[in-house]
């Protein structure tokens, strides 16, 4: 094999401005390739790398902009407006749940908090049995997870990676006799800056920007940013490429239309956008499940105020996790808290003098993110024309999901009081705070499910999944056990949409491994898929 050299810095990306300045391309142009990969996050970058390494001509299309890590400013406010999906304004139809996603080359791996956790053996074996996914059984799928761990340098936090904020969680857990453990993260020589959510300027976060994308590129993959795929093209029922449009991310100007002719299309745009592209493409779906089964792994941030200054924004963003309830109830609690903007994502931030006083106590706060498992009853829908229509995300907690969120937030609050907090702010749309553990239940009782659980908890989701469920039965699932759409040969899905049901662990590790598995399926059957 020829010597492959990865550039030391950056990723070669063709951006809208490059297309605009290239007269040979014009306003409408066609590219030919073996594989077109839609999306450049955890899944897309992995597929691009595996396909390119196997000798395929690969084209990666990313709708977000290219933001090289050398340009990260550790400024969350500015980062939000540039490389977060809808400037962190991607919400459900009632606008009370925020879906936080990266919208850039590298996707959510660039702005995530680096938290990695494997799905348990019981979960994997359950998928294998329930959905006919034998290849995802713990025994067969674990090698994929292990390989990902090696490539992304996943490690368990060491003592210096556990900050004052996390120590309050530990103290609380010790007192309550709850099981806790240091979180696992994909970071190499973490500099403990606490700015993960604004991207890592020193390339210590093992995001796709510094791993699978430059590796894929070194093997010849071409990457386009600012390029939104409108729909998948089919010919005689088989996927044959995509139509896309290139838009200047600063001005919003339409730069060009791109037509891609490809032997194979791999969708890796995430749990929200992959099903939307498929809906726009009007691909057949016998199951009627396309876009459905949306699970969001909702989380709320609970804030504790302590007597002594913690400067909880210093150090690794996520230090420890409380795993006492993960397997019994589906609640997982992670320590957190970073930039001032993060404070505004929790509970009521008050107004006037009360708001200023709330903010001025910043150094005394510790935060935890309380994740709960949901039932996967949401759905995403594309309304209107493929070019001018719009997305809607339908999700309101059922009574059971609401109670789960309430219980996880209450546990987090109890842990903080046990750790010495003198006050806990609850993550609700009402202005609720408890001044002692004895007030907690009474305050929690005030959080009423009301009308469909709307505007009760201020919750967020980092992990939408399940919207193109994988399974053996084409009447119950959208995608086959190899990752190929049941009814459209040559069209694969490789991202979080595949997850057959709601899971409680953070999903990034699983998504990387699934994408590697789907890539293997394609490479192992290459003669069936590629003309050359």
């Amino acid at each position, binding site marked *: 094999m020829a010597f492959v050299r990865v550039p030391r810095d950056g990723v070669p990306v063709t951006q809208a401005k490059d297309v605009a300045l290239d007269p040979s391309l014009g306003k409408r142009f066609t590219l030919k390739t073996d594989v077109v990969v839609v999306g450049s996050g955890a899944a897309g970058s992995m597929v691009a790398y595996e396909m390119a390494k196997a000798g395929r001509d690969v084209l990666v299309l990313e709708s977000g902009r290219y933001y090289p890590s050398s340009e990260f400013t550790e400024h969350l406010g500015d980062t939000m407006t540039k490389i977060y999906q809808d400037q962190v304004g991607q919400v459900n139809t009632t606008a009370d749940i925020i879906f936080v996603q990266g919208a850039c080359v590298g996707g959510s791996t660039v702005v995530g908090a680096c938290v990695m956790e494997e799905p348990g053996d019981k979960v994997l074996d359950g998928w294998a049995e329930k959905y006919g996914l034998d290849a995802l059984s713990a025994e067969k799928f674990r090698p994929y997870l292990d390989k990902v761990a090696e490539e992304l340098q996943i490690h368990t936090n060491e003592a210096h990676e556990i900050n004052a904020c996390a120590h309050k969680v530990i103290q609380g857990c010790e007192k309550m006799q709850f099981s806790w453990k240091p979180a696992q993260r994909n970071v190499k020589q973490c500099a403990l800056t606490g700015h993960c959510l604004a991207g890592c300027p020193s390339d210590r976060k093992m995001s796709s920007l510094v791993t699978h994308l430059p590796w894929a590129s070194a093997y010849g993959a071409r990457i386009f940013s600012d390029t939104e795929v409108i729909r998948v093209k089919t010919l005689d029922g088989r996927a044959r490429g995509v139509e896309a449009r290139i838009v200047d991310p600063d001005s919003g100007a339409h730069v060009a239309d791109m037509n891609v002719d490809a032997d194979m299309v791999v969708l890796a745009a995430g749990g929200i956008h992959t099903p939307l592209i498929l809906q726009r493409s009007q691909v057949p779906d016998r199951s009627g499940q396309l876009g459905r089964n949306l699970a969001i792994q909702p989380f709320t941030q609970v804030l504790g105020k302590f007597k002594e200054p913690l400067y909880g924004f210093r150090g690794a963003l996520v230090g420890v996790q409380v795993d006492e309830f993960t397997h019994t109830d589906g609640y997982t609690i992670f320590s957190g808290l970073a930039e001032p903007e993060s404070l505004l994502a929790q509970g009521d931030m008050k*107004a006037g003098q009360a708001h200023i006083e709330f903010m001025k106590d910043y150094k005394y706060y510790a935060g935890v993110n309380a994740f709960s498992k949901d039932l996967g009853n949401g759905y995403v829908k594309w309304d209107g024309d493929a070019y001018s229509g719009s997305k809607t995300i339908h999700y309101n907690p059922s009574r059971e999901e609401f109670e789960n969120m309430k219980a996880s937030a209450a546990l987090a609050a109890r842990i903080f009081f046990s750790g010495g907090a003198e006050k806990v702010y609850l993550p609700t749309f009402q202005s609720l705070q408890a001044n002692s553990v004895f007030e907690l239940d009474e305050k929690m009782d005030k959080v009423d499910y009301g009308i469909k659980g709307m505007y009760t908890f201020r919750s967020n989701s980092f992990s939408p999944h399940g919207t193109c469920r994988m399974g053996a039965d084409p009447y119950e699932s959208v995608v086959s056990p190899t990752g190929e759409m049941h009814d459209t040969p040559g069209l694969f899905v490789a991202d979080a949409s595949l997850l057959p049901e709601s899971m409680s662990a953070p999903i990034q590790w699983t998504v990387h491994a699934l994408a590697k598995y789907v890539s293997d399926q394609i490479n192992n059957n290459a003669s069936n898929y590629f003309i050359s």
Partner: protein
Amino acid sequence: MKNNNRAPLPGHLAGLEPLSRRGFLRASVLAGAALTSGCASLFGRKDAPETLQYYSLKPDEVDVITRLTEIMLPTERYGLPSSTTVVPTVKNIDIMAQRFPEQTRELLGLGIWVFNNRPMMSFKFKKFTSLSDAKALEYVNAMQEGAFFERGLMTTLKALIALNYWRDERTWPGLEYHGPVTETWGVRRLGNAPLPRA
């Protein structure tokens, strides 16, 4: 295709160049701004809110958001940069709204209208912008404790204002928040990870 790779500096300097270059550029821009506009305006804005150009917010929306900013963030009384004359909070919101998806932008417009015009008996059915400071704060707090859609709307508007004020690094010293540290600490860039072994 454009190649964005930069030639690495040799030896012990490799990995430091992007940060150093960025620091230099930032310093140059600040120095240039100070010279051309006068040092007094470097850390403050000369223009009053009403003279600013808004591209997304309508004039009546600007009035409502400006008034809510004054009520929510009475910053000058607490030694913080003014939320209206120093930090361009409303202008920041305008820039953000410009890039909202159309549906979100329409919802925001509707929300601002409802917030300003929502008749409440306790406030003699006055518009929010016509209320005194004390009454306006009372109205905001009442909305926060109101029906589910009232608290949803109030929280959204507050988050928009707070985010676009506290994102300004001039507000951070007031919180004892140090902001970016990588450059200050001289943290070396690692660059791309090496290819995995076959």
